[in-house]
């Protein structure tokens, strides 16, 4: 019961009666169609013996010696791999997995990747973003990890929590935003014990609460990362777990979102200098920075308890 080799299926895609050329992606009007099919009007039966007609694919300024249908196959499969990978536990796509799709044509990786990104943006409004490791020894260097996540490229406003009912996802998202904002306004790191103090104030540590499970999930999905810190104080050796933003949070969630989240929590009674205070505490700059620095307001100590925000379900 062998399954068919899918290479031969290249021509079985939904075609619009065009010979040789791949399906509808060609007819979209948007953007620049960099790809040029040299053999569109050729009768493919005659190709094999005509030395002047070369079946090749042009991507940008590169000419690749591969059939257009096969290249298109790679692009499609890469897009599908990315989309269906988002269902797995880690929700990542490894560069190696994409290379595996290419068989012996791994040298085409960059072109295929670029085209797959275009296709993802066009159809889904998403793109692959590489997870980076952030150097911690004061260098702040970012290194690639050859692992990608899928993130949305749609404008922020569309994704407002009021317009979509994300159901149970909303609860997780809200909790995550709380954690990330607590970390952010401490310039990027918080002790786990302090985080748990906040959780207590927010009534998240009650009996039967699954907060630990959620933390584990965030850790696994790389929204947060933990590291051990050993230090000495008057009472002897101490160990603390430090919690920081993880690679996925850096790739998926712009700081602007977190700033807006905090603003939303404060609601209409927020002081006008709130944004400036947040930025000062976090040591970040956002696009809409107010030049008003009159208030040397201290860092917000975290979100107020019992807030009326609809982003958190307590």
């Amino acid at each position, binding site marked *: 019961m062998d*399954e068919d080799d*899918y290479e031969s299926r290249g021509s079985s*895609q939904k075609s619009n009666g065009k010979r040789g050329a791949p399906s509808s992606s060609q007819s979209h009007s948007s953007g620049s169609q960099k790809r040029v099919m040299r053999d569109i009007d050729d009768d493919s039966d005659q190709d094999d013996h005509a030395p002047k007609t070369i079946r090749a694919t042009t991507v940008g300024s590169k000419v690749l010696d591969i059939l257009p249908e096969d290249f298109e196959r790679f692009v499609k499969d890469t897009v*599908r791999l990315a989309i269906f990978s*988002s*269902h797995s536990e880690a929700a990542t796509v490894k560069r190696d997995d994409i290379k595996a799709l290419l068989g012996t044509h791994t040298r085409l990786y960059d072109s295929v990747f670029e085209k797959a990104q275009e296709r993802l943006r066009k159809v889904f409004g998403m793109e692959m973003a590489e997870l980076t490791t952030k150097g911690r020894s004061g260098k702040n260097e970012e290194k690639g990890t050859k692992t990608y996540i899928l993130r949305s490229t749609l404008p922020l406003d569309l994704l407002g929590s009021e*317009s979509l009912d994300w159901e149970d996802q909303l609860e997780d998202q809200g909790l995550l935003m709380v954690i990330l904002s607590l970390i952010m306004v401490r310039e990027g790191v918080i002790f786990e014990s302090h985080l748990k103090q906040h959780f207590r104030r927010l009534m998240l540590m009650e009996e039967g609460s699954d907060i630990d499970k959620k933390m584990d999930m965030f850790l696994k999905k790389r929204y947060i990362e933990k590291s051990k810190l050993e230090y000495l104080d008057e009472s002897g050796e101490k160990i603390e777990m430090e919690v920081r933003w993880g690679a996925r949070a850096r790739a998926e969630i712009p700081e602007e979102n977190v700033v807006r989240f905090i603003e939303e929590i404060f609601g209409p009674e927020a002081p006008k200098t709130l944004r400036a205070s947040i930025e000062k505490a976090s040591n970040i700059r956002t696009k809409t920075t107010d030049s008003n620095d009159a208030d040397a307001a201290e860092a917000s100590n975290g979100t107020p308890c019992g807030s009326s925000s609809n982003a958190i379900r307590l």
Partner: protein
Amino acid sequence: MTTPDYSDTHRLFLQALISRRLMTEDAAIQLYAHVSPFDQDDFTDFINTVNDSLSSVELEIRRAQDEATGDKIVALTNTNEQKIAQVATGYSPLELEYFKHLLDAIVMADDELYCISSTAAVNEASKLKNKENKSLQLTKAAAEDLLTRFVHDKWLIKSKTGALSLSTRTLLELQSFLKEAYEEQVQECTLCMEIITKGQRCNVAACAARLHQHCAKTYFENMNNPACPSCRSPWDGKTLIGLAPNVEAPHTIRRR
């Protein structure tokens, strides 16, 4: 062939559908109403527009009805379904091999039961062999975990009595694979022509008429004397295919 209307609204809908994998049609319509300013009645047009765009990656949004409940669902599926591996991502070759075995056992079950017991499924694990006929290492514990994953990922359904059967997702995504590999065993509903593994059948043994529960309801709605669409004999809807609820699946498996 995309209509000029394709916009971020369509993309947003797609993203929501992706994160949920499968949605009930009601939820999908609600989502659509939230994200777009269009008329409720244009939902089908909306889906068609999205599908035009999706065709460039050989995916489509399909609507189907759950065999057991009749619930209408909406799912993002492949349009080319030849290789199971391409469809079920996130599984190792060994895990896929096991899945194929289970598919085989379920489709080949006697008396059109289209299911197997979890016990039998776990026992199958020790029978896995690779192409060189060497046995593959899948422990019973690992098999049980895998079964849980298959159910969680909505490839298989587990009944209260532990019977494993094919989910709507499997029927949607692997339709052509199943029809091709199991020509004789796979049947279609006489009304909707989709694969059927749970439902009613004609009382006459030789008659091939089969109907989903929800299709039977529609078909016989206003009929005073329900009659088989094929052979016209009386149809009482009591002869079933697929496992009757609250009954345990048989523990033996017929090998191909």
